C-alpha cells in the first residue's frame, strides 16, 4: 500500500443512486485469479455498448475523464456484492477517492484496504459537487479530514481513526493484528464449543 497524501483533482460526476458492485465490475469478470488488469472492466456494461464500442454517453468515455482521480456518485454507492474487485477496478482506473452521501458497509471496508478513500458528505455539499462545471477541481486532505471546494469552502468528512492512521502510513492491518498474538492465544485457550472441520465427515 502507498501512503495516502492530500491531493487535488477535477471530478467525474455520476449522479446515480445505489450504484451496485455488479455495475462497478460485472460478475463475469470475477473469474480471474489475479488482482490486476481490471481497469478496463470498470463500469463495463455502462461504458461499452453491446458491440464492444465505447458508449459515447457514458462519462468515463470522455477523454478528459481519464486523468481524474475523484468520482462523485449518488447515495449508497457500492451496494450489493462483497467483491473487492470493485475497489481494485476503481483504483486501477486511477480513482483515489469516491464522494457520496453514503456508502455500503462492505464496499467502504474494502476501499479503505486499497487506498481508495470513501468521502461522505452532506446532501447540500453533494448537490454542489454535482453542479460544479466540468473543469472544477476539489482538494482532499485526509490528515485534516477536509474536502475543499473551488470557492474555498472546506467541508469536514468523517474517517475511522484507525483506518486514517493505516492510510496515512501506507500499511495494512495485519501488522497490528499480529501484535495481538498473546491476546488471540489467550482467547483461543478459553473458547467453548469449537467445531473441527478437519474431522473426517
Amino acid at each position, binding site marked *: 500500500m502507498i501512503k495516502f497524501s492530500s491531493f487535488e483533482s477535477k471530478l467525474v460526476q455520476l*449522479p446515480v443512486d445505489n450504484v451496485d458492485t455488479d455495475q462497478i465490475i460485472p460478475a463475469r469478470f470475477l473469474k480471474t485469479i489475479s488482482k490486476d488488469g481490471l481497469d478496463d472492466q470498470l463500469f463495463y*456494461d455502462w461504458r461499452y455498448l453491446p458491440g464492444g464500442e465505447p458508449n459515447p454517453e457514458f462519462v468515463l468515455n470522455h477523454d478528459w475523464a481519464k486523468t481524474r482521480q475523484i468520482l462523485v456518485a449518488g447515495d449508497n454507492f457500492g*451496494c450489493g456484492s462483497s467483491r473487492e474487485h470493485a475497489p481494485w477496478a476503481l483504483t486501477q482506473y486511477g480513482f483515489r477517492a469516491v464522494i457520496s452521501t453514503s456508502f*455500503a458497509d462492505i464496499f467502504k*471496508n474494502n476501499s479503505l484496504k486499497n487506498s481508495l478513500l470513501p468521502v461522505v458528505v452532506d446532501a447540500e455539499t453533494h448537490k454542489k459537487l454535482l453542479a460544479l462545471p466540468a473543469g472544477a477541481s476539489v482538494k482532499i486532505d485526509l490528515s485534516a479530514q477536509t474536502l475543499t471546494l473551488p470557492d474555498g469552502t472546506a467541508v469536514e468528512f468523517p474517517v475511522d481513526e484507525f483506518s486514517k492512521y493505516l492510510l496515512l502510513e501506507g500499511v495494512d492491518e495485519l501488522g497490528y493484528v499480529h501484535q495481538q498474538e498473546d491476546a*488471540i492465544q489467550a*482467547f483461543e485457550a478459553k473458547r467453548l*464449543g469449537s467445531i473441527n472441520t478437519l474431522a473426517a465427515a
Partner: protein
Amino acid sequence: MQKPRTIIEKLWDSHVVTEQPGAPALLYIDLHLVHEVTSPQAFDGLRKRGLKVRRPDLTFATTDHSTPTTPKSLPIVDPVAATQVRQLEKNAAEFGIPCYGFHSPKQGIVHVIGPENGLTQPGMTVVCGDSHTATHGAFGALAFGIGTSEVEMVLATQCLPQRKSKTFEVRVDGTLREGVTAKDIILALCAKVGIGGGTGSVFEYTGTAIRALTIEERMTVCNMSIEAGARAGLIAPDDATYQYLNGRTYAPKGTDWDEAVERWRALPSDEGAVYDKGVTIDASTLEPMITFGTNPGMGMQISGAIPDPASISDPVERESLAKALRYMALEPGKPLAGQPIDVVFIGSCTNSRITDLRAAAGVLKGRKVSPKVRVMVVPGSQEIKRQAEAEGLDKVFQAAGADWREAGCSMCIAMNGDQLSPGQYSVSTSNRNFEGRQGKGGRTFLASPLTAAASAVTGVVTDVRSLLAQ
C-alpha cells in the same frame, strides 16, 4: 444486575479478543467459509508473506459460483472458470483446508452446505467472502460477508478488526396467508426500508411470524439482509433450530450436544433489551411480492402498479427510478402481473433448499410450463439434489418441462454460462435484480418459488393464488 442485551450484543461481547484504544475491536471468527471467486488473491497474499492458515480446522471451502450446472461428466468448458475452480482445489490442498471440490458428492452453494453439514451453529461468528453470508444468521450466528483482504486476514489470524454495528429489530408479527412466503417477508422489508435502509446495522428478526418459519425459511429471510443494506441479519435460536441441527455431520454429539444446547439457550435477546433502530411488518397483510426495478428495494405487492418517477421530488432519486424503468422497459402506472417472461430460475442461496423445491414442485405437479418459457431448477447442493430425486421432485420438474440441473449459484450471478440473453425477462427466486446480474441486458423480477413456478406455467408474471384456487 447486568443491563439487558440483544443477541447481537451477546455475540459481539463473547467474541471480542481485545479492544485497544484507537483501534477497532478484534473479533474472533468461529467459522470461515471459502469459495473460488473471492479467495485466490487472498491465498496469493499468504504465499507472498510466507504465512499459513492459522486454523484450517475452523475453515471450509466449496466450489459454487463458477461451476457449470451441466452433468458432472462434462468438463468445465470455460477455461478461465476451470482455472479458478482448480486453483481453489489446489489452494485448499496446499493450506490443509477441507474442500468440497467440483467433483465432490457434497459440493454445493457455500451458504447451503454450511448449515446442511452442521458447520453453522448458534452463537458462532461466521464469515465468508460473499455478501449473502448473513444466511447463517438463521441459526443465531453473527454472520457477515467480507472482502478478499479480510479473507486473507481471517485465513492468517482467525480474527478481524471490526467496529460494532447498530442493532436493528425487524419485528414481523401475524400469520402469513396462503401463497405468501418467507421470500415475500424479506422482499417486503427491502421495499419498506430501501436497499440502504440497514446500512451500518445488524438486523434481528423477531416476532410471531418469524418464530413460525421453518429453518429453511429463516435462511431465506436472513440471506437477503444485505439487500436491505445490513451486512448481517439473524434470528435467535429455538427448539426448531436445535431439531434441525441435531445429528448433522459437524454438530456436537452426546454430552457435547447437551452442553451446547444449554449454552445456546442463553443466546436470545434479554427481556427489555433495547435496539438502536426498529421496523415492524404485519405478516397477515402481506401479498406475494415482486420486484419491478433494478435493485431489490424496488419491489411491490404482485397486485400493485409500477410507480411513476414523476411522483418523486428528489431529482437524483427520480432519475434513478426512471433509469431503472428504462432498463426494464416497463411503463409507470401499469401492473406487472401479466407481463410476458422468457425464463424462470428456481435456485440460489436464497431459495434452492429442499423446501423451496417442494413448494415449486407442488405448483408444477400435473401442469406444464409455458412453451414460451425456459425453466431452470438448480438445487443448492448435491445433497439436496439427491434428496429431491429420492422424493421424485426431479420427475415432477421434468414432466412439467423444466430443466433439472447440477448444484451451484448458476443464474443468480451468471458466471457459469447460465444466463439471460439481452432483453430477456426472468422471474427468479434469487436475490438480486441489478442491471445485467443474470446476464448482460437481462431483466430480472425477484419473487418466491411459488410465484416463479406459477409464472412458469402461465408464461407471464402470475399471482400464484390464482393457481392455488384451481
